[in-house]
């Protein structure tokens, strides 16, 4: 199972890198989304994939799942949700203001003016 997850995470990172290297702003944002998905799955895999009861008192189970990676993922998902939403709004505003979503044409003139 861990091997399978490793492949999945690898594919996610690969597609994310490919998308982020493209010129269209929207593709770049989708790429960042995939990148954070990969990172979240990596946390889950690194915490150890195992079956078990919820780690609560009174469950009397043989094995318990590790709650920490799940808590971490939840936090990271919410954060990346916020950042992606902000990024989308910003991209939309930039598209309106600069008239293009092509990163090449967005480049400033000499210096930073």
């Amino acid at each position, binding site marked *: 199972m861990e091997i399978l997850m490793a492949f999945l995470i690898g594919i996610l990172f690969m597609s994310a890198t490919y998308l982020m290297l493209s010129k269209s702003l929207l593709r770049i944002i989708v790429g960042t989304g995939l990148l954070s998905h990969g990172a979240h799955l990596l946390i889950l895999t690194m915490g150890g994939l195992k079956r078990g009861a919820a780690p609560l008192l009174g469950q009397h189970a043989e094995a318990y799942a590790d709650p920490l990676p799940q808590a971490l993922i939840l936090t990271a998902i919410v954060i990346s949700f916020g950042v992606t939403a902000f990024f989308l709004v*910003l991209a939309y505003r930039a598209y309106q203001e600069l008239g293009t979503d092509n990163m090449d044409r967005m480049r400033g003139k000499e210096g930073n003016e």
Partner: protein
Amino acid sequence: MNSLIILPILIPLLTGIILIFFSKNIPVQKLISVISSLLMVLSALYLAVAVYQDGIQTMNLSNWEAPFGITLVSDMLSALLVLTTSVIALACLLYSFRSIGKERESFFYYPVFFFLVLGINGAFTTGDIFNLFVFFEVMLMASYVLLVLGGTKIQLRETIKYILVNVISSALFVIAVAYLYSVVGTLNMAHISERISQIGQPGIVTVIAVFFLLVFGIKGAIFPLYFWLPGSYYAPPAPVMAMFGALLTKVGVYSITRTYTLFFYHDTGYTHGLLEILSIFTIIVGVIGAIAYSDVKKIIIYNVIVAVGVILFGVATLTEESLAGSVFYLIHDMIIKAALFLLIGIIVKITGTSSIKKMGGLIHQYPGLAWTFFIAALALAGIPPLSGFAGKVLIVRSGLESGNYWGAGIVLLSSLFVLFSVMKIFINVFWGSPRAYRQQEPVPAKWLLAAPAVLTAFAVLYGLGTEALYPIISLAAETLSNPEIYINAVLKE
């Protein structure tokens, strides 16, 4: 349990929330923000005194015992940085009152400003590696908004790049934490340090150490990863630039310092050797940029990179003396960079340009501005009685003692070039014959000068009072160089 430790985090949080309700009433916003940032300075001061007298302060959030829940830890370094942050925030806030403009003020400038402070203070205080990530994100989220607020073309363009770089580095942070968790099985920083000591830092931990260097290096702008900084910091207005230049990169530097003294100190030949080489390259690149540009903003921005290199060189040397030097220099640099960014903000506002070739003769009209800038410039370069000197001396001396003549030499030489780069500004901007500038609106130069003048005065006092401050700084360095103190304070109360 001492609830003092949470106040520098809680006050900006509550202030930020309350300010949202008064988004249309700017005078009330100003009043509330001044009061609460004064409270923040006071609570940070009390916290620093408490840490100095009673040792490291901790708080287990939600009342979970130390390695299981999130712990806030305030050692001397954290307390000092929180205090410096609060003071700089107050100065930038006062500066903002007359310079930031109605439009930004009614678009949540002050609430977001306080959320930024919340993130910075939180990152300095937390004792949990994942919580550090969360505070980083709070800080970054606020910085995105501050960077784009105003919505000019250059801001939109630079913000896109800045967000993209930071999203990638945040993903790397999550990945690094995941790897670390799989090896040590804990997130509490003290507990991580203990576990790594038990397993004796095998190769995989060294890989994770380099990973963390990569993550914090992007935030802190070290040598190969500084590329985003000159563009992004160029775009926003002066007070935001001051907050970014003085504080944001320093959070990255602090994180490197913390992880490389608390976690990864077993295989120093590799990890700290790498850090040393990178820090020297960082200094060189920063110096080249500072000399090459003839744009006031760019010169100071590249000086930020130089300072990052100097501080990290002290961390890489890893003796108690060099760490004391780094802490000295870190605090000096935060204060003086804030002052310089605010000063060049005034210059740019007066002249309407940031190229030094189009300026001249400001000393006739604004002598106060000129001399404040002169003192700040000398302090930046580390001329003896001023701040910056003590830190650099300690860093260079311990570099020489550990036999790294090249590194120490470059740190020394860099001071000379830094001095040259800021004197270039001074000579071109303030000397010469006055020119006529197109001013859209009158500049309240006296009001604006107050904040950087006070910061510069702090820097001077910090330099003159080196002898008196040394016990405090060496206490911070002692905690850094003996991880047991930190571990014992957190885990065995």
